[in-house]
């Protein structure tokens, strides 16, 4: 046995020796505190709104013989060319980056391959296959580029990947931002200019989260080292020009969180919502398509109730929206493309699940979606035309098949294509 091996073998005992101390009888004080403290309802625990480690749930791609690799690559190129030609003949104009658009293709990932699904027919087409492990992120706002992550070799736990771009309507090869910087819980948002992307990554040295803004063709790459983003909430480009990115930061009290905006040109930040020790930001945030309002949820740290708020992007005119009588939890807002309705999750006292509800921001009647969301949460995205919601619920750690929720009736329809992991819904010109 080497010195190093013996050292590592003995280290637990040495550490135990160093940490030796009297019995921690303060446990009795703790227990008298907890005896009078309330427990949190199941759906409100923080784990459900921390980003999920995508890579831990993925099955490693099996290495294939070289002959099959070549055949698969050839097929992938042919299919990509066919898809490119198909899309090229069907899309002549591009939509504006925010607001309503016509419904295009749906990005679906299966077994490390990228597919594009036509939601009208349910037919899916392989866009990029082969031995690599790829995963859709989504489409650029103009619908011309597909953005995906190519994961690196599986290390048995988490791993890193590169952001890649496919030019839809072209047979050209994918282009990558040549840095291994995407992690399983990175957040990504495409800029309204259709050329840039913002994402979060880890600084390996500290460790801490950083915001990166890069060109999708890899020509520019900027790290915002001085912006202390937290490990959830992601980044969201703000309409109309994408000059600012919204993110969630730790508050000055270091206990709660604030919502701030980062000027991507100057690197300056400004507060939009600042919390005190009594309240905290809960879950995701959503900016209206006109860039003037922000929807977010605020949790009372004493009662644990969660209320939905809408505030002006200048940090003024904060209002509670849609709080139904008796609801104890309303969060996860998502503006519709028209900027009039909010998809939210609503929980009632005593229930360990939440229900998706479409709330009229002007105070009109709610639309109750006929399903339930457990504490595992759900991925959701409005259809570009605002007629429905593409959703994928997770139950007991397992992703269910995709669903379409009718935004008018609340009816739920299982997707007609094979179960996949959804990445986004392409916006195309009306």
């Amino acid at each position, binding site marked *: *046995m*080497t*010195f*190093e091996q*013996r*050292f*590592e073998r*003995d*280290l*637990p*005992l*040495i*550490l*135990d*020796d*160093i*940490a*030796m*101390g*009297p*019995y*921690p009888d*303060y*446990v009795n*004080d*703790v*227990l008298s*505190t*907890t*005896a009078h*403290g*309330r*427990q*949190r*309802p*199941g759906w*409100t*625990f*923080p*784990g*459900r709104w*921390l980003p999920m*480690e995508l890579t*831990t749930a993925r099955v490693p791609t099996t290495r294939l013989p070289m002959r099959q690799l070549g055949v698969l690559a050839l097929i992938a190129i042919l299919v990509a060319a066919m898809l490119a030609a198909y899309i090229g003949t069907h899309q002549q104009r591009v939509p504006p980056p925010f607001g309503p658009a016509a419904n295009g293709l749906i990005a679906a990932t299966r077994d490390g391959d990228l597919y594009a699904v036509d939601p009208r027919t349910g037919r899916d087409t392989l866009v990029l296959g082969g031995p690599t492990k790829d995963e859709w992120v989504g489409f650029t706002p103009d619908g011309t580029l597909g953005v995906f992550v190519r994961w690196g070799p599986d*290390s*048995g*736990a*988490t*791993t*890193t990947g590169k952001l890649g771009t496919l030019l839809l309507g072209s047979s050209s090869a994918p282009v990558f931002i040549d840095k291994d910087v995407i*992690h*399983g819980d990175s957040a990504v948002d495409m800029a309204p200019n259709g050329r840039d992307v913002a994402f979060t990554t*880890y600084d*390996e040295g*500290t*460790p801490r989260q950083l915001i990166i803004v890069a060109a999708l063709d890899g020509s520019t790459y900027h790290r915002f080292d001085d912006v202390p983003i937290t490990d959830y909430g992601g980044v969201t480009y703000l309409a109309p020009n994408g000059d600012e990115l919204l993110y969630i930061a730790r508050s000055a009290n*270091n206990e709660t969180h604030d919502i701030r905006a980062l000027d991507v040109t100057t690197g300056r930040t400004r507060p939009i919502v600042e919390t005190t020790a009594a309240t905290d930001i809960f879950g995701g945030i959503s900016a209206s398509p006109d860039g003037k309002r922000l929807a977010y949820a605020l949790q009372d740290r004493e009662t644990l109730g969660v209320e939905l708020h809408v505030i002006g992007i200048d940090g003024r005119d904060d209002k509670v929206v849609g709080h139904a009588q008796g609801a104890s939890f309303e969060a996860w807002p998502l503006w519709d493309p028209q900027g009039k309705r909010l998809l939210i999750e609503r929980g009632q006292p005593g229930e*360990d699940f939440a229900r998706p509800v479409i709330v009229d921001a002007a105070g009109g009647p709610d639309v109750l979606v006929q399903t339930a969301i457990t*504490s595992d949460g759900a991925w959701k995205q409005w259809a570009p035309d605002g007629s429905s919601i593409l959703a994928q619920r997770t139950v*007991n750690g397992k992703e269910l098949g995709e669903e379409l929720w009718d935004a008018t009736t609340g009816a739920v329809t299982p997707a007609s294509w094979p179960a996949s992991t959804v990445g986004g819904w392409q916006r195309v010109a009306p």
Partner: protein
Amino acid sequence: MDQRGLVERARKGDHDAFAELARAAVVRLDRAARLILRDPELARDAVQDGLIRAWRDLPGLRDPEAFDGWLHRLTVNACLDLARRRRRRPIEVELSPIHHPAIADDSVGIARRDLVDNVLRSLDPDGRAIVVLHYYLGMPLPEVAATLSIPVGTVKSRLHRALGTMRIAITDATDEPQRESIAGGQLA
């Protein structure tokens, strides 16, 4: 009653069951927190915070078998929160005297323990947390990565650096024959 039964009762609001779980875990939590924070008062705060969070969030724990790891995670994250909050203030090292050494109480053992102690102090709290989670609490590296919300590659590289620092310190402080006897009491 076994731990699983206690966790299931505590999840439903049985505070007596939670008290039994807390008393069984508190010594190990306290020691882990003292190793990470190097300050018994801060460690006490962190363990208290971890246990209060555990009681509050127990209904969200889906797998009762995962209770130990989950409680360790809450406590270690409470430690790191405290450390970050107080980063501007020097953390005083006020470890209590050793009462019952677990390894041979000879001069060589004490020298080795002191060396490790000194090196551990020189690491930042995040680095100490990785060493403590892996070597003291026995977590596999992927679980350490999940606990600290960092990539497993980062965990490996930081652990490698921390162990390297410890080895170098011990190498610098002792000559080769002593190292051999320090490591296991006999030559390899």
